[in-house]
């Protein structure tokens, strides 16, 4: 998912959930910040590196690919962009190292997603926005894992798009190229993807890189053969998945605002969406690689207020100059990011899976029922 959904659509979802304009802006800002909060960004504002929620291209190119380096990559991508669907998924074949990677495949409606939303309760709009980013990505990034792996994340060369015709959907082949400088061309069916690399842990095999940006576009429906699927073909219906993500986001935000008593998996705020369903469907199915304008217009029509564009500089001065940094927007965001990472890494580690590393208690005494930020330090970092 991109800025169109993480920023403008999240704003619309927050307004529909009952938040004010200012609160909605903070929520959507936080949701979109997850894609920009790299170590480079944190270093610039003088914040702890352990709060990184993404890696820039250059950071990934420099990343170590030994055990410690891979754990660092997995901690970031599995915690914020590819939340594992089932850490105890039954795998009846393969060695442990295959099973460990298989169990990191992202799927929506997981226990971890539920826990992500619960973790953000009463933590303010920053934590709510961060949780919404993670929730939405479970729909867009499903079937891919947040760890470099050829045997999981590779896709077949033949991918078809299902293009809507007058009466039915017809099949159109998708062609891939490797030139990120050129934009994707949906009309010609030409998209960018990462190069095929045989080394299992090559950074090119991280997440959905081999399928390019197909999971990031709301309009596309496509069929492909994932490397892990035992030659079965998966048809990904992005308009439907994105609509579910939006409805689930409204439901989760209602819970975080306190208008719902509980949040459970597989619950959607269809009743709130129904008056706007036609408009949402039309935005989601329009063939465009960036739906920001449509989502912005929709959000503004809901609140009657202007949505300013995302500006990475907006809260930096406040954070740098604050005497108590924890009580700033970025301070609370960093706090929420550390809590989310601790929770996910703890869950992965507790399942016996070493791919995200292990957590070491910083405090030698006391009992903590749930991980809290600062309670753990990342092993090896």
């Amino acid at each position, binding site marked *: 998912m991109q800025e169109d959904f993480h920023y403008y659509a999240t704003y619309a979802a927050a307004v529909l959930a009952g938040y004010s304009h200012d609160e909605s802006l903070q929520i959507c800002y936080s949701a979109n910040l997850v894609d920009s909060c790299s170590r480079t960004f944190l270093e610039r504002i003088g914040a702890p590196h352990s709060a990184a929620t993404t890696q820039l291209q250059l950071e990934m190119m420099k990343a170590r690919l030994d055990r410690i380096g891979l754990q660092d990559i997995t901690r970031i991508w599995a915690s914020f962009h590819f939340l594992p669907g089932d850490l105890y998924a039954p795998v009846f074949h393969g060695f442990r190292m295959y099973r460990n990677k298989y169990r990191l495949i992202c799927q929506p409606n997981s226990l971890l997603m539920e826990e992500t939303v619960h973790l953000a309760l009463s933590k303010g709009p920053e934590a709510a926005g961060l949780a919404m980013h993670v929730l939405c990505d479970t729909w867009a990034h499903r079937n891919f894992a947040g760890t470099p792996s050829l045997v999981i994340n590779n896709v077949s060369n033949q991918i078809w798009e299902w293009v809507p015709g007058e009466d039915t959907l017809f099949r159109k082949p998708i062609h891939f190229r490797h*030139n990120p400088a050129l934009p994707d061309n949906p009309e010609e069916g030409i998209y960018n993807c990462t190069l095929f690399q045989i080394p299992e842990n*090559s950074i090119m095999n991280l997440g959905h890189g081999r399928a390019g940006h197909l999971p990031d576009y709301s309009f596309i429906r496509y069929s492909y053969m994932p*490397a*892990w699927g*035992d030659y079965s073909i998966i048809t990904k219906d992005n308009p439907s998945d994105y609509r579910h993500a939006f409805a689930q986001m409204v439901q989760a935000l209602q819970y975080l605002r306190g208008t719902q008593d509980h949040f459970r998996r597989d619950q959607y705020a269809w009743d709130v969406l129904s008056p706007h369903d036609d408009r949402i469907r039309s935005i989601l199915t329009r063939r465009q690689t960036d739906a920001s304008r449509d989502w912005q217009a929709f959000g503004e029509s809901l609140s009657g207020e202007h949505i300013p564009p995302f500006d990475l500089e907006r809260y930096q001065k406040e954070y740098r100059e604050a005497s108590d940094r924890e009580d700033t927007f970025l301070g609370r965001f960093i706090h929420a990011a550390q809590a989310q990472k601790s929770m996910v890494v703890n869950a992965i580690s507790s399942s016996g899976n070493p791919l995200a590393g292990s957590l070491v208690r910083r405090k030698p005494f006391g009992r903590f029922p749930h991980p809290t930020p600062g309670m753990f330090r990342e092993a090896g970092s």
Partner: protein
Amino acid sequence: MSAFLRIGNFITGILMVLVSLMILLFPEDGHLILITCISIALLAAGLHSLFFYVTMARHMVGGRAILYFGLFLFDLGVFTCTLYDIPQAMIMLYLSAIHGFSGVMSILRSRESRRMHASSWKLPLLSGISNIAIACICAIFIRSINTAVLIYGFGLAYSGILRILSAFQRTRTVFIS
């Protein structure tokens, strides 16, 4: 290309230059050291591919290609081990053939990169063409063994330098958001 691969390419390039120097300085026995290095590298790469297939890739769609690749490399490594007591001219022919084969592989990789509109296709193409050219010249001068060894030594040094240069080449990846 990650930092790890860059370091690996840089070290391999330096080793290739060192071995080529050895061949040029000791033309009588230098090729035996080279044969030993190649056979160890092929055996290690073959075993690594087979291990990867058994533990991971056999459950992957299209993973059998990795099995065949591993078997091929391992077989080639075993064959290379047996070449120590045959005439030097035959060994030089074999080394030229391997050099030429690696050139063909470089050109195929470069064609794939070009087909994908990647910017990093020129250096592999140059490396592939020069490797094939060196292999051909070596085969032509095989009757004069000293000349062939010299040509091969220079060719190996040139390939090593290209590999070092490739370690500094810029690569790009699709950014996931």
